[in-house]
């Protein structure tokens, strides 16, 4: 079934003159490099405008205007900020563990980047349609936890270590409700590949997973959304980098480009959970109505993800931060039991119909 798939990376690779003469290994490496460059550009552009969106939404929610000066309505503001960051001195404190301190931001960014290869960007378009698709996403994103601990520990700073410990505890805990809510989807679809999950939801918005086996997957979507908020450290679950308590959490000692990598990873993760939510629950590239199918699929996919990201930002400027015990209460005593109920409900529904 993967034979009909268009792989944008391989398509690009074939455009390079004389690529057939290269050895197989070089081709593999080259395609990996290409995929990395494409995804990096994608995430970087997204991060620039996500920051802009974040600041604009924050401004308007607080009856301000947000960035207005650089470019039309401040559209180039974040580009100016990025150039400033690139020019900054790459500064490391004296007592850091240099090896791990240097390695950590790249590891964090790598996990954020490699999640993107499995997403179904359009019908028949994805970089790698693994048949364990969504499970791969969960697996890769779990590497971020040791990476964050690495950053926090090597900084040799109390705030960094506190932030890293909080982040690890939070991500490890919230992986469980997220995983359980994803199981609800897999039970409905019967497949773990992202492309297959999206194909399953074709033909109108009432066929989307969120409206299948009605109340249960609907609740599962909210569990997924809350859990994903916690996994990407967004308010109200932004304890790992709580500015008022921990300076900047595990990123405290980082500056310049290394800090920018953390930053990119954060916004990349934001986009990733938005895309996962859109693909699993909101039908991915499927249009909400059949007659709207003239709009390209990737646009639907990105739009749905952007709606979820907007809700994330909206929540950020609405809610205060949770306390650690409240965070754990929400996870273990509310989300996990509800997710179990959803699994049982979906299972019964699937068996009975």
């Amino acid at each position, binding site marked *: 079934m993967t034979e009909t798939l268009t792989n944008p990376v391989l398509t690009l690779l074939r455009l390079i003159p004389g690529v057939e003469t290269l050895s197989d290994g070089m081709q593999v490496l080259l395609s990996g490099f290409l995929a990395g460059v494409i995804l990096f550009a994608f995430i970087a552009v997204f991060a620039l405008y996500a920051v802009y969106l974040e600041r604009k939404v924050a401004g308007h929610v607080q009856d301000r205007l947000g960035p207005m000066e650089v470019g039309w309505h401040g559209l180039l503001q974040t580009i100016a900020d990025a150039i400033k960051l690139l020019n900054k001195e790459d500064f490391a404190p004296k007592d850091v563990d240099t090896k791990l301190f240097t390695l950590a931001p790249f590891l964090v960014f790598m996990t954020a980047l490699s999640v993107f290869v499995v997403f179904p960007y359009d019908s028949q378009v994805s970089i790698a349609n*693994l048949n364990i698709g969504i499970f791969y996403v969960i*697996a890769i994103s779990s590497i971020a936890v040791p990476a964050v601990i690495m950053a926090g520990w090597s900084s040799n700073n109390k705030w960094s270590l506190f932030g890293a410990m909080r982040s690890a505890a939070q991500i490890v805990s919230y992986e469980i409700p997220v995983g359980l809510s994803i199981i609800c989807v897999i039970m409905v679809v019967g497949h773990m590949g992202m492309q297959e999950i999206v194909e399953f939801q074709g033909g109108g918005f009432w066929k989307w997973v969120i409206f299948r086996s009605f109340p249960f997957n609907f609740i599962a979507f909210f569990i997924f959304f809350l859990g994903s908020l916690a996994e990407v450290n967004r308010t109200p679950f932004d304890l790992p980098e709580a500015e008022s308590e921990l300076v900047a959490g595990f990123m405290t000692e980082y500056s310049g480009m290394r800090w920018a990598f953390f930053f990119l990873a954060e916004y990349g993760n934001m986009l990733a959970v938005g895309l996962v939510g859109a693909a699993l629950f909101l039908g991915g590239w499927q249009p909400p109505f059949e007659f709207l199918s003239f709009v390209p699929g990737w646009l639907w996919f990105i739009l749905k993800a952007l709606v979820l990201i907007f809700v994330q930002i909206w929540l950020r400027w609405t809610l205060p931060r949770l306390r650690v015990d409240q965070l754990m209460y929400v996870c273990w005593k509310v989300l996990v039991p509800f997710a179990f109920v959803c699994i049982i409900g979906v299972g019964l529904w699937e068996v009975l119909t």
Partner: protein
Amino acid sequence: MGKDFVFLLFVAMTIGGAAIVAFAKRIIYNAFALMLSLFGLAGLYVFLSADFIAAVQVVVYVGGIMVLMLFGVLLTTKLTDVKLTTLKNQRIWAGITLGFFMIVLGAVIQRAPWIVTHEELVHDPQSATIGELLMTKYLLPFEIASVLLLAALIGALFIVRSEHK
């Protein structure tokens, strides 16, 4: 040559990580090197066409057990800077154990029916087969394992819970 390069990369990750675990002097480096080794192993599973097992390896070992070990290392702060040394009289025992282990491994490697060509690989989704086998042929071991885990969970809760409540 094509996939060999990536394969060798994963092999290097696994063995190099394991070597750092064995020889590094700081315990935190050992922990992170173990992570590298486990990740390399996951890559090797992919080459065995066992993608589901590879993902499970990453989730369970890198995302779960490694984090547990890191927490252990970080919470016992006095240990993080302790220089690890091995007593000399243990070397002989270690040598004997190593020799025995290598003989067993060598025997297994010699006798296992290895898949050597690309055509012999199974390309079917592994997850479906695994699920089916777990629910039919290996249901009893699966259930016993889950009961064991449940018992462990309840036991942990019992130990953690304060008695004056």
